[in-house]
């Protein structure tokens, strides 16, 4: 594979420095700083399982200490001594009471764990009580699409929701040209909001999420989905209701139409649904930029109507703000993120000239 550009190299250098730092700070550091941790819930659908598992971990720890303690005790106490007379120890064949004891007690403990487990399986899978928002999720190789049916908004990789509001995700998977035949299984996971749920082509699965805090959350596809599985990340953004409303207002408005300069050239290059005469290299052949006419219909790739309002792109692995990354991406996408355009999965190298890239970058940044 070709080099993943200077940014990755810089990352690696930083990594090396941070590894040394990590060593220096040792386990203290290990106790904090894990933005995708499943041990730090920040929403009710993550909190409930967390509260359930804590006593189970405690019981497991107790059994662990008990069994390991028995082993260590036996090893120390019953080791053959140097002054051993060679006689045999008492030939004990078993003990029925003990057998019953260690059959019944674990069974009772497990029954105690089973009851709340089953209750919670049903309660977390049911529709949220009271009002909730629905977002449709489509897992593509290798990016996420979010559609808000209440507002007719399409966006990608970043799931924006209002804080303290239950959201029910209706999820499925599809691939090129929305063809379920080519979709593969993914799994949606923002650990601080909820556990994961697989996303299956040809079926709809559901997941309830809710954020208790305003913030930006890390998530990732958790079911192996092929070449760029690791590059299929998710960002959860929870906003105060007013901010969310403002976000909705922006997202529901048509894309800006630059009238002059580089951005206008970019718009020309990009093409529109109504003007794709630049053929296969038309961005609009795969990416929608909704100009306010007709209905919003998503293309094969992510909707770019408000590209610049997002923070990350390409499966949330690159920063929108980083112009160099964006240029590198346009120059040769499969070199930046492993994809299989020959298998109709992912974005091909369009052989854009530097001038074309200048224009497209200006246009993309105009799509606030």
């Amino acid at each position, binding site marked *: 594979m070709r080099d993943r550009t200077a940014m990755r190299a810089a990352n690696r250098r930083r990594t090396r420095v941070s590894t040394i730092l990590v060593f220096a700070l040792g386990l203290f550091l290990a106790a904090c700083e894990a933005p995708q941790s499943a041990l730090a819930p920040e929403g009710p659908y993550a909190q409930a399982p967390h509260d359930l*598992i804590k006593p189970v971990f405690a019981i497991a720890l107790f059994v662990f200490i008990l069994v390991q303690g028995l082993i260590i005790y036996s090893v120390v106490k019953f080791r053959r001594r140097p002054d051993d007379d060679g006689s045999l120890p008492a030939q004990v064949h078993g003990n029925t009471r*003990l057998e019953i004891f*260690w059959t019944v007690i674990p069974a009772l403990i497990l029954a105690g764990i089973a009851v709340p487990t*089953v209750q919670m399986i049903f309660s977390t*899978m049911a529709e949220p009580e009271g009002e909730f928002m629905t977002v449709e999720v489509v897992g593509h190789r290798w990016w996420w699409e979010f559609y808000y049916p209440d507002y007719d908004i399409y966006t990608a990789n970043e799931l924006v929701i209002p804080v303290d509001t239950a959201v029910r995700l209706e999820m499925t998977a599809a691939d090129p040209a929305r063809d379920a035949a080519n979709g593969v299984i993914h799994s949606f996971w923002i*650990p601080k909001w909820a556990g*994961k749920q697989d996303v299956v082509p040809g*079926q709809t699965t559901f997941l309830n999420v809710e954020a208790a805090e305003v913030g930006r959350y890390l998530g*990732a596809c958790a079911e192996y989905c092929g070449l760029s599985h690791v590059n299929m990340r998710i960002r959860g953004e929870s906003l105060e209701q007013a901010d969310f409303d403002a976000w909705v207002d922006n997202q529901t408005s048509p894309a800006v139409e630059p009238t002059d300069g580089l951005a206008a050239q970019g718009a020309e290059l990009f093409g529109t649904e109504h003007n794709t005469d630049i053929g296969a290299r038309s961005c609009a052949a795969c990416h929608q930029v909704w100009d306010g006419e007709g209905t919003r219909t998503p293309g094969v790739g992510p909707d770019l109507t408000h590209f610049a309002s997002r923070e990350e792109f390409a499966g949330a692995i690159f920063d929108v703000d980083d112009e160099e990354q964006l240029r590198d991406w346009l120059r040769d996408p499969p070199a930046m993120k*492993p994809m299989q355009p020959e298998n109709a999965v992912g974005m091909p190298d369009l052989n854009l000239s530097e001038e074309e890239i200048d224009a497209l970058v200006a246009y993309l940044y105009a799509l606030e």
Partner: protein
Amino acid sequence: MSQSTMTTGRRSVFSRPRAERGFTSWITTTDHKKIGIMYFFTVLVFFTLGGAESGVIRAQLAQAEMDLVTAEIYNQVFTMHGLTMVFLVIMPLGAAFFNYIIPLQIGARDVAFPRLNAFSYWMYLFGGIFLYSSFLLGGAPNGGWFGYAPLSLDNVSNMAFYAVGLQLLGVSSLSAAVNFITTILNMRAPGLTFMRMPMFIWMSLVTNFLLLFALPIIAVALFMLQFDTIFGSQFFNPATGGDPILWQHLFWLFGHPEVYIMILPAMGIVSEILPVFSRKPLFGYAAVAFAGAAIGFIGFGVWAHHMFTSAIGPVARSAFALSTMFIAVPTGIKIFNWVFTMWGGKLRFTTPMLFSIGFVSMFTIGGLSGVTHAVVPHNAQQTDTYYIVAHFHYVLFGGALFALIAGVYYWFPKVTGKLMDEKLGKTHFWTWLLGFNLTFGPMHMSGLLGQPRRTAVLPEELGGSVELYNLLSSIGVAVLAVSALIFLFNLIKSIRGGVASGPDPWDARTIEWLSDSPPKHYNFAEIPTISHRDEFWHRKYAEDEAGKPVAVPAGASEQHVPDAEHAEGDHDGHHIHMPDPSYWPLVMCLGMFPVGYGLLGPTPWLIGIGVVWVLMGFFGWIIEPVAEGDDDDPVVEDPAAPRSGVAAH
């Protein structure tokens, strides 16, 4: 010796090979011991390959955002690591022990179907070679060992090699299962009732029944997968009404019993070793035996716990949560019985004992994290993260592999007549224990802190603590590599110049130690009659008036000295009719190569060649004389001609 019965021009192509030494004797052997040894050394090769793959994985993940290998290569490597360790290392290592130990422990001279046994080995070897040839033929499978459809239907996933390769390996295991079940049920020595069987035999029996019932399921699933890719049969294709979840059900309906297929032989081995080195019988023999059988049964009812976050409903999730918790009960019974086997004993910390204690300790950790998986709402956080990777390595590495290595140290004197070096063995154990925990312990944490599995790089965004844990894991693999080299060195050193072990180096309890070490090819000159559980021990020890066990004075019992029988009967095997070697298992299996490559798709005509070849081998198999000398060949009627290869020496 092997040419001594060459009767000029009268031997047909269907006569049996006679070599007893050298290359030909190995490739034509039907001797369960030789086949067991071949399994073992083949496993060593594949273990090296699988270990090298784990090295690639850990090198790539040692730091965040590394690109030592491309995502494509990484995905091939982790897929092959899983396939290798499951199908080419742990399962066949179990089979190596089944082969070598089962006939000896039940007092038989070979397995029920010796040629089928050779066939199983060649299918295993060729299945492994076939799978690995994918690296040279366009790339190894990259869809994971679980091969989830529809990703595995995709031609870029190279999963055709997976479908055909596993099918070949499945045929190997299935025929072996039939063989061992028949052997255990029908060929036990007189008096060896079920409740007197060594625990390893019990666990082997359960394991082989699991194989018998589980393998057809994966065979069907693999055929369906292949029909989908080659003929467009649409079993798993959602676009045409197929169901990708059906694959998951079929795969795990095989895949979970598979876990017990890997761990039960290990449990059997530990149940042999702990009593010997505690100088006490196994605590709760019946409980351990029936807990094993219970695990076998319940093991078929827990498969969907691999699918708790898949598209299954709350009732299914609840039912499988309950069955998964339930299976912890018989597992716990076994653990407590092993601990209490040591309790009150006189423990000798030989290398096999250390590995067995290590097994009990490490497997307990894997069992406990397994119970936490059954808490379904939180399983949604755990599944597909490194927490799961940690769990199953504690079960299959800390569990199965520790016990299998214990078995290698324990039975090495049986196979070679020499002891393995104890000092190197102990170094191996402690470095192995350290490396293992350093590798897989931190994965519990990195998983719970949000690191997903099967990612070609370690994303930097997961944070410094996840990076630290990954670095520790990578260092752990380096320790394991050193430890494995110590083991290998010990093996070679001990095979070449190990100290002579004598027939009973451990003061063992079961009758495989009644035979010579290494055993004669007919195992027992006279089949022993069994009157006790731990028969061999009872021949060595009697109870005094107070019921206290004492050693039988030498000479007091005719049978207690392993070689006594040979002396008294002056047996040298002349009268013993042993199965003859055969070319046909090897010949027949070679035909599986063209069949396999033909099934990949592009060159279907190879299937024709392969089928003809296999049928030819099959025909030869049928038509060759049951035993040399039983032939209709008129020359054999000549009383001057020796009647058989065995007789010839």
